[in-house]
């Protein structure tokens, strides 16, 4: 009972330090909302605006029919027409167009003679992902033209055709993938912000020594210092999840309790890391550096933007230490794949392990690090 009272008073004190100062209150509330809105709209791999230029040396109707496929597509935007080789380089160099469609002068003739009709696609490969996606789109338009041509000119059907379909996200809208990941991203940032400085600030002010001579045990200090982070994290996550469902209309298909269990364990592990960093730090600056030093790799190597499977094995092993990696799988599976507990155990326990280890380390460091 006494213990509970002590923990609660420490919690209240922690909340006061976080919320009394107007500036630091704003820092906790405003950025996550703004970030969700901005990044929610910004972060997407989908191409919806591919500028292209046409260099058509052919005079036939057929080339115009092929090009109509591009101008009629919602993703391709015609930037202009060029008439000379020398115009290609400046357009691509300055990034004014992503690709140039070059139709050779014998295009229509070849088509009618049944010879392969040449279409050259010159593409800016600086951003290889964009280039590959744009090429895929272009290929599909050409394939559609091929199909129409073959049907109209009595060509035989191909011996086999591919029928492509996507599960969980039929239109392959990469926006969903990223926006759901933002739950993990912003929660990691906020919890680290709240916890990473909490011990360091007191160390710097000398009040942590005072805390240690009170009857509070390290365990109680640990609980009192982590609960505010968990409460703030849960509130913030709930708010973000609500916005994602109601504002961005991303389907939440799975079991919401499975999501919250994951969230709770994720917050525990993030707080454990934050408190550990904080107890290692002597000054606030060091605490902040530590939080930064953990956060940046944790975000970039979490699978948030680029898949973990593309990483070399050594880096993949490192990512097993990153709680965000597991939580990203959980949010994405619950939201998009409709997963429930049974598919997610393999993600829960490593996070829990990280949480328990880091929290115990933090509690140990409270006492050990006395100066």
């Amino acid at each position, binding site marked *: 009972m006494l213990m509970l009272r002590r923990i609660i008073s420490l919690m209240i004190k922690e909340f006061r330090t976080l919320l009394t100062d107007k500036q630091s209150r704003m820092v906790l509330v405003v950025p996550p909302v703004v970030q969700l809105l901005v990044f929610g709209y910004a972060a997407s791999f989908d191409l919806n605006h591919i500028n292209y230029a046409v260099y058509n040396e052919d005079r036939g109707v057929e080339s115009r029919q092929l090009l109509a496929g591009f101008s009629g597509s919602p993703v391709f935007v015609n930037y202009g027409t060029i008439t000379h080789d020398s115009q290609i380089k400046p357009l691509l160099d300055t990034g004014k167009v992503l690709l140039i469609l070059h139709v050779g002068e014998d295009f229509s003739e070849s088509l009618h003679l049944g010879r392969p009709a040449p279409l050259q696609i010159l593409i800016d490969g600086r951003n290889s992902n964009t280039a590959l996606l744009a090429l895929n789109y272009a290929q599909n338009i050409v394939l559609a033209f091929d199909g129409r041509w073959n049907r109209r000119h009595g060509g035989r059907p191909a011996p086999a055709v591919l029928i492509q379909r996507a599960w969980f996200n039929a239109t392959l809208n990469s926006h969903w993938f990223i926006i759901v990941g933002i739950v993990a991203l912003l929660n990691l940032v906020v919890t680290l912000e709240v916890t990473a400085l909490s011990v360091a600030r007191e160390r710097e002010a000398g009040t942590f020594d005072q805390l240690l001579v009170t009857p509070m045990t390290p365990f109680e200090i640990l609980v009192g210092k982590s609960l505010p982070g968990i409460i703030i994290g849960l509130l913030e996550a709930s708010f973000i999840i609500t916005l994602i469902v109601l504002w961005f209309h991303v389907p939440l298909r799975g079991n919401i309790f499975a999501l919250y269990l994951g969230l709770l364990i994720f917050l525990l592990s993030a707080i454990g890391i934050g408190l550990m960093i904080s107890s290692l730090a002597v000054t606030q600056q060091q605490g902040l550096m530590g939080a930064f030093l953990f956060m940046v790799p944790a975000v970039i190597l979490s699978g948030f933007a680029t898949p973990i499977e593309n990483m070399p094995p050594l*880096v993949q092993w490192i990512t097993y230490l990153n709680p965000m990696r597991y939580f990203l799988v959980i949010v994405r599976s619950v939201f998009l794949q409709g997963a429930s507990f049974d598919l997610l155990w393999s993600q829960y326990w490593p996070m829990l392990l990280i949480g328990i280890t880091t929290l115990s380390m933090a509690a140990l460091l409270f006492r050990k690090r006395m100066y």
Partner: protein
Amino acid sequence: MNNNAMRLRGLIRKESLQIIRDPSSIGIAFFLPVLLLLLFGYGVSLDARDVAIALVVEQPGPETSSLISGFSQSGYFAPQVMLSIQEAEQAMMERRVDGIVWLRSDFAKEMRSGHSAQVSVIVNGVDANKARLVEGYVNGVWMQWLARTSEVIGRPLHIPVKVEQRIWYNPAVRSRNYLVPGLIAVIMTLIGAMLTSMVVAREWERGTMEALLVTPVRVKEILLGKIIPYFILGMGGMLLSVAMAIFLFHVPLHGSLLALTAASALFMLTAIAMGLLISTAAGSQFVAGQIAIVITFLPAFLLSGFVFDIGSMPVVIQWLTHLVPARYFVAILQTLFLAGDIWPIFLVNSAWLVLMALIFFRIIRKKSNKRLR
């Protein structure tokens, strides 16, 4: 004049001593970029290789085995042959495979008869970007196999339009070639802001700023005294990063070293100005640190065009990206490395950087003057 120089020298000396005595700044400037670039340079890649894919073969035959070998030899796939679609669907639910190619039992028969055999491809759309790339790779393997096989079974394909692709600047379409220059911009934003975001706040918090203000030192000199040492430190880190990009990650550098140095110096100055601004505006180290995290790393990561294409963002967000200095540096670096000295891109983006740095310094001056009163 002589006095000015002396005062400035004194301040620089003080700041340099502080840097040397607290090794964390040196760590941030040299150790951190190397570590981050190593980790991310190897870790961040959008080139899918060895994608786990399930090939459902209901009835094995010569056609199916040639398709399987087509998949495994492409280098893009690590195909797992499965006997039933249920097995493959289960594997996809458990995230063991990213796609399914389903060859039904009548596949070979349909191919040899006059019809078209239908082959279903199912990709896991949770990671839509990867799913799209996987679809593209499947198509590539499929078309090659189809062209070969249709000859063999005597139903040659007629493909009216022959597409010839020319990929400029990055013919191997290696994502590392554009991600590593972008990473340098992201990392340097962090370094610049981290180095300086707390230095002024620290002085206010410790009360040494007031002590400094009663001396004849001018605000301008205090600021210069803080900028110069950190600028030198930051440029050292930049040099290391660029060297790593070229020699370790083998990103080709087509542009000139002069342009690269100029752009780097300009960007470093802007990043440091941003850090100082945060530091001046915030009342405490705590708030300064939090603001630094919020407005440097995430925008540099998400809004700079480093991974997410700015051209595809909604117009309002595109305007917002103009407030992110890293955006200009990403554009300059990607072009300098992969395409060469393209002056229109270089000059426009440099002009934006200059403008941002000037505005930042102007606000810092103003804010500092105000606090004097």
